[in-house]
């Protein structure tokens, strides 16, 4: 039988990671704040339906992503890199990693389509397995792996020294 979940404990345990996720998804502190509020606003009244407390984190992340997608559903994201253009970024040779500027990283993420951005964020800063990322996005794990590989190549290329002024790839 599932243990009762305390709402305050749930907030304390997850608000930071949810905020970071929201920030990286949307690229704006104000939007991230709103998204986290909206996420808990939707989740807490339905807390009783969460049977397994261990799944709370994945559940909250899914709610946040859905809230984000709902917000941008009708928004034209002309600056996004379409998925088919990500193939132009070959895997770079292993090299000593440069320090990554968070703002540069965010700019690169902002240019990425959400279907590539979400697995990338989940891969890098939360302890989600590929399987859990696939569950979050309702995708086969192979699709997630493929998108991750392409998005990581893109990201490495964008973050490599000398690529700061690179334009977007031709569509």
């Amino acid at each position, binding site marked *: 039988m599932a243990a009762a979940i305390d*709402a*305050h404990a749930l*907030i*304390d345990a997850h*608000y*930071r990671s949810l*905020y*970071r996720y929201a*920030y*990286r998804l949307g690229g704006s*502190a104000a939007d*991230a*704040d709103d998204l*986290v*509020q909206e996420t*808990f*606003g939707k989740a*807490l*009244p339905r807390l009783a339906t969460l049977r397994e407390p261990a799944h709370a984190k994945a559940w909250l992340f899914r709610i946040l992503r859905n809230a984000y997608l709902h917000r941008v559903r009708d928004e034209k994201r002309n600056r996004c890199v379409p998925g088919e253009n990500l193939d132009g970024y070959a895997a770079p040779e*292993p*090299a*000593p*990693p*440069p*320090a*990554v*500027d*968070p703002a540069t*990283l965010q700019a690169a993420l902002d240019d990425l389509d959400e279907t590539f951005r979400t697995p990338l*964020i989940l891969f*890098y*800063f939360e*302890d*989600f*397995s*590929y*399987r*859990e990322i696939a569950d979050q996005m309702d995708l086969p*794990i192979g699709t997630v*792996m493929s998108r991750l*590989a392409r998005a990581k190549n893109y*990201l*490495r290329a964008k*973050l490599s020294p000398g690529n700061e002024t690179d334009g977007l790839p031709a569509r």
Partner: protein
Amino acid sequence: MDCPHASLLLLFHRPGRPSDLVPADAAALDAHLAACPACAGALAARTAQDAAVGAAMNAVPVPVDLSDRLKSNLASQLRWAWRRTAVKFALAASLLVAAYGAFVAYTRPVLDLAALADHQDRLWQAPGLTAADWLTEHRLTDALPEAFDLRLATFAGRRDLQGVPTLALRLDANGRQTAWVYFLRPADHNLREIATGQYTSNVAVRVYRDLPGGWTVVVAYTGNHFNAFLRGPGSDA
């Protein structure tokens, strides 16, 4: 395991993170990495790159008051939820009361004056017979504790007795002498303390317990002659 196979498995290998490799593949990969400097070096470089990007990904300052604001919103949300629930219940209760009122209004019986007159007419014409029929109908014949003269009956039916509709028989004898015979169930009234006696200067009460059918009968009568309500010698009523 060769290097191309190891490269493939490395896609699933995340040091320090949940892995999607089955234990056998993970063990084989670990063995290959221990023996292959090239693959181990590639993994080390990739891990370092991932660590650098991961550190930057995590470098998001979280507002210090966010937790307090979320909890404050939660309290507000719960208050509103409680109010909404209360309003819903009040609305549901109002609807139920209205529905019950409508049900009662539409299903209450129409007063049948013809039946009323017919009953009274039969009682007037043959009070003894009517009362006897009524007793039979309600299986009270054996519960009658005395040989009452049923020809004196002027009422046989239910009478409100301190809030409970109660089977009752009224007998009217000469000289304004009246007796009410009540048939009582223990479930309707608490009968433990009641006793026979003269309760006012005009009214005496007799209590008969443990009658057939579990009935208790109470007879409240006026006048000094209880025998006035009983059948006389040789009576056949």
